[in-house]
Each structure stands twice: as C-alpha cells, then as structure tokens.
C-alpha cells in the first residue's frame, strides 16, 4: 500500500486512479461507516442515486477535494455551468475526470 496521499507536486502526472482513490478516502471521511456501497467505488457510481449522499454531505466532499487539490481545480466555475438536475445526477467519474483535466490543463507554474 502506498503511504498517505499528499498534494500533487509539479511535474507529477495525476491519474484517474489516484483521484478515485482520494475520493474514496474523502467519502469515508465525510460519511463514515454509514456509507452505502456494495463493492468498490466506481467511475459510474452516482452520489445521489447510488450513494444516497445528503446534499450537505456533497458540500463537505467538494470542500475536502478542493483542500486536497488546491486552486488549480476551479470547482466554482465548473459548478456554475451545471443546472440543479446535472448536479443531482453527478457521478464519481465526472468529478474524477474534472479534477484530472484541471490538473493537466494548468502548467506547473515553473
């Protein structure tokens, strides 16, 4: 097992697998033992339908995600493009892809 996850550093490629694992850890942190999940967290798992996440729990999850990945992930702009139904229908994979694309799109700053 790898050690505790840490913030990505410049030049490091962030894979969907890594973000998925991070999201899994955050979910457990936010929801605790009460998490509804038969089997591993998958890209097509939906927050509302499958995980039965309360909306206030999704807020907490998004926040921890931002703390983990920092300002390079412009969550506000992304959420602003979505309508209520889109947010309710969000899947794990959509969030993972958004994070991966955000981190890939921005140069490391050096």
């Amino acid at each position, binding site marked *: 097992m790898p050690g505790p996850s840490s913030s990505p550093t410049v030049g490091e490629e962030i894979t969907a697998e890594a973000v998925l694992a991070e999201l899994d850890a955050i979910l457990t942190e936010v929801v605790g033992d009460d998490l509804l999940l038969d089997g591993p967290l998958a890209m097509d798992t939906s927050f509302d339908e499958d995980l039965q996440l309360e*909306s206030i729990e999704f807020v907490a999850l998004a*926040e921890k995600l931002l703390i983990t990945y920092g300002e390079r992930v412009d969550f506000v702009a992304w959420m602003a493009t979505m309508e209520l139904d889109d947010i309710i229908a969000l899947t794990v994979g959509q969030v993972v892809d958004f994070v991966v694309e955000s981190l890939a799109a921005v140069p490391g700053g050096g």
Partner: protein
Amino acid sequence: MPHVQANGLSFHVQELRGGPSEGTSNGSSDSPAAVARPKVVMLHGLVIDNLSSWYYTIAHPMALEADVHLYDLRGHGRTEQPASGYSVDENVDDLVALLDHWGIDEPVHLFGNSFGGVVSLAMAHRHPERVASLFLIEAHFAVEGWGEHMAGSLALAAFGLDEDAVQDWLAENADRKLSRLAKRSERFLMETSLIDDLQAEKPIDWLAEIACPTFAIYGSESDILDRARELEAKVPGCELEIVPGSSHSLLTEESNLIRERALAWIARTQRG
C-alpha cells in the same frame, strides 16, 4: 468543514469566490481589477433546509460575479443546534455576528428563501446601513396567525405530530438521505424551542420602513401568496414577480429562472 464561532454558536459556513483571479491577467488594461466585488449572503429556509439548497442552485453562478457567503442557520445543517433561541431577532443577531466575523462592514446583498426571507427583512429593518438590497424568494413573515401557520405547514411536511403521516411518508421515502433528514428534523422540532419561538413572533408592522431595493418572487400556487401582495403593497419600490404554476418550493422548481433573476438583480443594484 469550515466552522466559525459567532454569537456563542459554532456555524457551518461556505465562502465561494470564483471568476478570474488576481495575477492571471494577460495585461489587458480594461480589466476592472480595482472594482470591488459585491458581497452576497444567502439565508435558507426552515428545518429540512440548509445551505446546500443555495449551493446546488444559484450560489456558484453568483460566485463568478460576487463574493458569496453561505451558512447554516442556527439548529440547521451542520451548525450547532441549541435548545432554544430560534426567534427571528436571534437569527438576525447571528447574521450580524457572522458579518463581523467575516470583516464585512459594507452593505451586503441578502438573499432569503422562505424563513430566510423574514430574517433578511428583519436585518434590513434593524440594520439598514448593512444591507444593500433584498432578493426574497417565497419570503415568509409574520402576519396574524403566523405561528399556527408555520407549525401547521411543518406538520404537513410530515415531520410533525401526525404519526400516521410520518410513517406513510417514511415508507415512501425510505432511502438513506431522507430518513436521516427526517430523524434530524423530528429531533429539531421535538427537542428545541423552535415551534414555541416561531409561534411567539409578532406580526410585522414595519414593512413600510424598509429602505433598500427589494425584489420578491413567489410561485402562483404558493400557500403564502398573501405575503407577496403585502410586500408589494407596503415595501417602498418593491418589485414583485409571480411565477405561474410554481409552489413554495420555487427555488428548486425554477432554479434556472431564479439564477437569471439573481444575476440580473446583482448587476442592476450594484451599478445603481
């Protein structure tokens, strides 16, 4: 979860700030970097509601234009739930304490949904110098018999005293998030002074004293449409819109429309 201590309680807050960040400018001279962004605070409704109803609807688009502050009202969401202190005035005291905590001394644009609407109105009445405008969605406020009505509508929402209705409702909605919400809401109603405090509210007789620009929007099928007419008649210059076919759940039923109106309102009132 960011929590801040204000007015003796621990509040769950979310601050959203989007749009072009400083330092990313490509040197274009017309970027109005010196123009201050409007400050917006959004107040949600009662018991089953929390800041997520804003977070899921208009908070993010608004955060591209303004600094948006959300918080769970006392007793709600992830804010502390004291045994008592649920009057409108105490909610106003909370808002004042939070504005102080955030260091906001300029007038803010208040967005109030349902019960958040009456807190916003009362804030504008008690502290007019701190309120730039009011955007009210299905605002509830005390008229004659208000306490009975609030308690009645809470019971109708199946969290109240009608045991059969609660059981039926839970059976139909026996999924995780709703049953958790129902349990928390029942605790809120049974173990705090919320209902007593609301029933003790006096009818508002100061609407004519509201001095800031005010927009009110209600659904044509709302059970509190009389409040819309009262706002229009009494609040000076109040603009009223009635959305055909919508109910008291206007924010979620018509979130796109509310989003458009909210962005237009901020652009207009900030310019003025």
